């Protein structure tokens, strides 16, 4: 039953994809090239008069050539997709882990102490809804380095879900388990690591999963702003080049990498999830 359901779902998915790509391909006919190019056209390198949405076939063609050599580096404005994605991933992961370094201990503190929760809650409530990109000018002014500023933006956007989920998870640890730790005379650090951390781990990992999703959303915009390298810059650069094939290809790559990040965290969450 379940198995046949899975197969049916696969069939529906594939048919939808084929139908979508087919319609797209049909609605974007290749340019008619029967007449010889005029001199003007030759001067323009055979470019069309107006940009049009490329067909799926062109995108697949570009994807094959880009992915077969993802790490080439032919100057500042011509790097392989792999290099661009690696830059973005580097910034996201750096900002994300720095945020985790702050958010997890702080979340523990807030979760364990109702007083600290009350004291810090106003700050969190005000800082949380700020769009991470709003920090960018301030970050650029203070840090004076676009690279570090984009990492800071990732840091500031991924800290809140982790902080709030950690505090929530720690505060929600069943009193019985804490009592078991108390009756076994566990030291505070032992209690934190042996009882509270494993008990709150699923909630904490869920927060981390939300964070990495937001970080990946934000890095594209941040890199469009600061430029230089990264997948966000790549998209903007190809838009300036009016290379819509590359734009659509990079949009797809953003989606795929984002999915892989999410799957990794989902897998990690499953590792620490327990059944009561």
């Amino acid at each position, binding site marked *: 039953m379940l198995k046949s359901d899975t197969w049916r779902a696969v069939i529906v998915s594939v048919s939808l994809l084929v139908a979508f790509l087919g319609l797209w391909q049909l609605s974007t006919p290749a340019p008619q090239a029967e007449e010889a190019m005029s001199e003007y056209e030759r001067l323009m390198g055979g470019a069309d008069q107006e940009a049009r949405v490329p067909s799926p076939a062109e995108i697949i063609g570009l994807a094959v050539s880009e992915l077969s050599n993802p790490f080439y580096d032919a100057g500042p404005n011509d790097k392989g997709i792999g290099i661009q994605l690696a830059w973005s991933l580097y910034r996201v992961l750096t900002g994300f882990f720095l945020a985790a370094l702050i958010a997890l201990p702080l979340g523990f503190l807030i979760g364990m102490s109702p007083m600290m929760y009350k004291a810090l809650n106003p700050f969190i409530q005000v800082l949380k809804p700020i769009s991470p990109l709003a920090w960018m000018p301030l970050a650029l002014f203070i840090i004076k380095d676009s690279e570090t500023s984009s990492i800071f933006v990732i840091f500031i956007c991924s800290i809140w879900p982790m902080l709030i989920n950690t505090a929530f998870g720690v505060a929600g640890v*069943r009193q019985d388990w804490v*009592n*078991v730790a108390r*009756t*076994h*005379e566990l030291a505070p650090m032992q209690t934190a690591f042996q009882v509270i951390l494993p*008990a709150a*781990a699923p909630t904490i990992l869920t927060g981390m999963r939300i964070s990495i999703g937001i970080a990946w959303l934000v890095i594209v915009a941040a890199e469009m702003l600061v430029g230089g390298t990264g997948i966000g810059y790549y998209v903007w650069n190809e838009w300036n080049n009016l290379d819509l094939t590359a734009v659509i290809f990079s949009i797809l790559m953003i989606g795929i990498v984002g999915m892989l990040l999410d799957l990794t965290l989902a897998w990690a969450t499953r590792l620490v999830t*327990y059944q*009561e």
Partner: protein
Amino acid sequence: MTHPFLEIKALAKRFPTKSGELTVFEDVSFGVERGEFVCIIGHSGCGKSTILNVLAGLDAPSAGEVLMAGKEVRGPALERGIVFQNYSLFPWRSALSNVMFGVAARWPGWSRDRVRDHSQKYLHMVGLKDGIEHRKPSQLSGGMRQRVAIARAFAIEPKLLLLDEPFGALDALTRGTIQDELLKICAETHQTVFMITHDVDEAILLADRILLMTNGPQARVAESVQVSIERPRERASIVHDPGYYRIRTHLVDFLVSRSAELSGSSTADSPGARHQGPPRVVDPARDRTQTASDPAEAPPKVPADPPHAGTDERARLRAVAMR
């Protein structure tokens, strides 16, 4: 005058409420001897669990004190093991690992192998072996989980074992099996046990003495019932003991009528009628004249000597009965 191993003196718990202070229980005094199995019975809300938590050191009383081996109980300690009604096992650890958690906390210097062997020994004692000990609590039945919790509590070899309605959530068959196991283990280890239960038959089967609490608020321990039935006891044969039904009737009668009659709220108008001090000691199995089924013949409610004052208890009981 010798002091009992565990001494509870004039314990009280009060909570502030909007309409003034609420006294859950007060003037609760009793003792537990080393190796004794004491059950406490009372209706919901009389503060049994609070008393147990105070004994465990998880809760602080509003008044009174608890002495264990002459030392005041302040905060939780490994010398008092607890089994909670809801098992309180860590769901992310296997059964064995849950027991090892306790053992490693009790003897931090032990090697991992020694901790494992010791834990396994106690899991065997409660009948968990053949790979079952590697399962997570979610993969175990309620009875199995409670066995693990009992193994964890026994494995740290506490001086006092506190059981908070350990079998309350189990079906009757499983409950019976685990009661038998508990009887066996207690007989082997001479464990001192203080247990909360709602089950009169369970109390008679397991306990040396049963403390009866009046209804809350202002609950107190009104009676200390001796269970004078020879050990070893068996679930099947204990009901044929001549004393069994006398004890049972006495307990049920207390729970049905006298727990309310004696409760603090009903005697609030005449404080002089309130019984003070340690609970009245009764021994329904040996005390032939006391037929609790007839309340008119119940002995007058007079303060008795402390149960462990070193006097001949039987003689005193006869004196009470002749009055």
